[in-house]
């Protein structure tokens, strides 16, 4: 019979207007992997924060080895033996692995290897964290917790940006750690993984525990049922079938890239080595690739900047399918860093919406008290349901969902032939995600080519008609139809297995 190392008893935590957790009780046993599953907003993150000492519960308490404990801050939690690996990661990018590990414990920085420890010995202590892959980072974080004396290890969405094989490897590591006597808590929305690896499950819905199950009592369908009142929204990689139907219609090309090579440079991004790519109007294409795969080198070319091109052919086509000498003039961009690269935080909503329509800002308009600007802004805000309706509100005060809506409204209005969206639904709740997805689809249906880039495999799969996979400066495969799943995408990204012979046709006929 396994020992209860830690427990949450009757935890309740409320915020103005929302009860995040209501009388939640969880028992964590030594040596087992415990999965906390639930939809967005079910209270998982709040529980993680309470476990980690970042939040104090309103009522209820935590137990450690049978004794009630109250953590005043994260340091207290760490000292007590609870280690949390947050989703966002808590490593200092510009310092080495060894330094980060030393930071988490009471050691002095040393340049030799023994600081590095069991689980990260393969990673290498002298490497800078920013050079590590997502899997290696997770390992370092776990190592840091363990070296700090953690007996309870809490991981919040540890496999969010990992490919399935990497997730598998991580879980095996977790199993090994559990076997040493730790209690491990995994918070995840990836049901297939936790179904395979977790020993017990606590299912949360709207802040309450709706079920406690052991592995032999559970199946995918049962979990889905418990999590929501319906099948929608759980497995984000499932797409409504009508989306897939539209992928079948024939399309006119917008851009053809053939045998593209770029000059090699000193950056960590791979130069392109013979890339073939076709972008058609009216489709949603995902471009997938790990950092360093060459996507960052490709991006300026999509924007029309061919300065880095060393060889190969880049051909744009106009609406009637004929060659066009120049790239399209109205390329929309939705960057990943919405507030800092897409909007001007200190400007208000109207001014931000006008960033692509600066003709509305001239001094002549100033004389008419900017009526045209206000009308334009109001129209866009109505169309996309941006609240609050006061367009003079500073954008930095908006919520994440509204920020993205403003950005989306502006770029969708502006873009004509091409729209490039980077991580468009990251960090958004389900309702806003649906709005964004619908808007992108609608824009594609209107004849624009929408290109999506993201680290999140589920996001890539859910948004696109087809996925082009990059690695080390080349296109290695393209996924369409039945192969459009997170599983195959993960396999392809890790170059374990992918459909071959599906690469772009070489239809370019330029002389160089």
């Amino acid at each position, binding site marked *: 019979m396994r020992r209860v190392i830690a427990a949450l008893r009757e935890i309740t935590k409320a915020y103005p207007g929302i009860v995040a957790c209501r009388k939640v009780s969880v028992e964590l046993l030594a040596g087992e992997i415990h999965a906390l599953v639930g939809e967005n907003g079910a209270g998982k993150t709040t529980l993680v924060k309470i476990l980690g000492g970042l939040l104090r519960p309103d009522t209820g308490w935590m137990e450690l080895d049978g004794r009630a404990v109250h953590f005043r801050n994260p340091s207290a939690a760490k000292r007590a033996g609870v280690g949390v690996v947050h989703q966002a990661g808590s490593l200092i990018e510009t310092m080495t692995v060894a330094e980060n590990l030393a930071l988490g414990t009471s050691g002095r920085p040393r340049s030799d290897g023994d600081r590095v420890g069991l689980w990260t010995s393969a990673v290498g202590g002298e490497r800078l964290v920013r050079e590590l892959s997502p899997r290696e980072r997770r390992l370092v974080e776990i190592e840091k917790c363990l070296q700090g004396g953690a007996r309870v290890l809490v991981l919040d969405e540890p496999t969010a940006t990992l490919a399935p094989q990497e997730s598998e490897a991580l879980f095996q590591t977790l199993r090994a750690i559990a076997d040493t006597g730790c209690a491990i808590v995994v918070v995840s929305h990836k049901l297939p993984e936790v179904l395979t690896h977790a020993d017990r499950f606590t299912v949360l819905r709207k802040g309450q525990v709706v079920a406690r199950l052991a592995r032999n009592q559970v199946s995918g369908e049962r979990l889905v049922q418990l999590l929501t009142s319906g099948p929608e929204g759980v497995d984000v990689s499932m797409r409504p079938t009508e989306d897939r139907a539209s992928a079948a219609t024939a399309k006119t090309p917008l851009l053809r890239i053939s045998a593209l090579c770029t000059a090699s440079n000193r950056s960590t991004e791979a130069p392109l080595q013979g890339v073939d790519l076709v972008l058609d109007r009216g489709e949603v294409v995902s471009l997938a690739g790990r950092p360093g795969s060459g996507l960052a080198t490709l991006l300026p070319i999509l924007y029309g900047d061919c300065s880095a091109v060393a060889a190969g052919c880049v051909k744009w086509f106009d609406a009637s399918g004929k060659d066009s000498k120049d790239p399209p003039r109205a390329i929309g*961009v939705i*960057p990943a*860093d919405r507030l*800092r*690269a*897409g*909007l*001007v*935080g*200190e*400007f208000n909503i109207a*001014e931000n919406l006008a*960033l*692509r329509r*600066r*003709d509305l*800002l*001239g*001094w002549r308009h*100033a004389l008419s008290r900017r009526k045209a600007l206000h009308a334009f802004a109001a129209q866009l805000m109505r169309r996309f349901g941006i609240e609050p309706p*006061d367009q*003079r*509100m500073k954008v930095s005060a908006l919520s994440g969902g509204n920020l993205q809506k403003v950005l989306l409204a502006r770029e969708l209005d502006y873009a004509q032939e091409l729209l490039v969206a980077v991580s468009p639904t990251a960090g958004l709740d389900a309702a806003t995600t649906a709005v964004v997805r619908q808007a992108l689809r609608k824009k594609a249906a209107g004849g624009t080519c929408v290109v999506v880039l993201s680290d999140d495999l589920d996001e890539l799969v859910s948004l696109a008609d087809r996925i082009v996979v990059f690695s080390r400066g080349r296109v290695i495969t393209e996924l369409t139809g039945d192969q459009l799943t997170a599983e195959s995408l993960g396999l392809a990204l890790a170059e374990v297995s992918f459909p071959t012979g599906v690469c772009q046709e070489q239809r370019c006929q330029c002389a160089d």
Partner: protein
Amino acid sequence: MSVRRLIPILWFTLALALALGGVSLVLSLLGRRPDVTIGAILGGAFGSEFGLTETLLRLVPILLCALAAAIPAESGQFNIGGEGQLHLGAIGAVAGAMLGSGHPPAIALSLMVAGAIIAGAAWGAIPAGLRAGLGINEALISLFLNYVAIHFLQYLVHGPWKDPASLGWPMSPTLPEILWLKPLGSSRLHAGVFVVVGLAIGLIWLIQLTRLGFELRAVGRSPRTSTTVHIPVRSYLFGSMVLGGALAGVAGFYEIAAVQHRLRPEISPGFGYSGFLVAWMCRGRLWLLLPFSLLVAGLVSSTENLQITTGLPSATAEIAQGLLLLLILLGTPVVSRLERRQAIRRALEAASE
């Protein structure tokens, strides 16, 4: 004047009182002139016709240097180099006068103005180019160029441009009187004050209400976004800094043509730095540039005159300005919070109508 605008004014008045009080405290602590009160300084600045004209006289260079710092500030840059750009402007003006000697005064004066503008702009172009082209921080570069400019002027007045008739004092020959800008009335005040005030109003209007100004402000507040929406960030970075240099250069021109009439090492008691401080006091609220320049001009003028009449240390003005800026900065979060509360209240009222 809306309530929202009154909040910062009230705070700044309080900060001014505190700054002057602080100066009095420092003075008395250091055992000097405890009887110099706020009243003496302010009275000297604005209380008499003489005081007022002296204040307005200094408004010209200080307002110009404030603009010289404020405009690059809107693009996110620190132009601490106003002092050096002023010096270069003065040098350029004298060079223009030398070039135009023998020609009709209209041409000579135009050459002086042109020389000042070009020299000041060129001095500003150095940090501008380094920043826009290479991404090197312009603050330190423009600051070091101040020292270079001051020494360069020293070199000129001790060397090639030294006035042989000046009995060993380092200065250039006096400008011919036809090139002197005429004073208004009996004081030293000249018509340049109207030009400068008009220029300030025009530039503020440009920044706040035109498309050019909008793009400039966008560059300053979010260069990455500006790049995304195809605003030419580098052009604005470079252009605003060069414009700043030109404006400070014009200040140099006025010092030569209207006030001092010759090049001397003491051409500026720190106008460039005062202008920079003023610009920082008014950050985000350009409409405050005029009143604050006036205030600081009064401070500088008054303490300078008190130095002559009562032996008040000349560094008083510097301390006062530094203190004033510090106090204003300390109050900024409070002021912003109050302003925001006002704005929210107004929005709620508007929504309930």
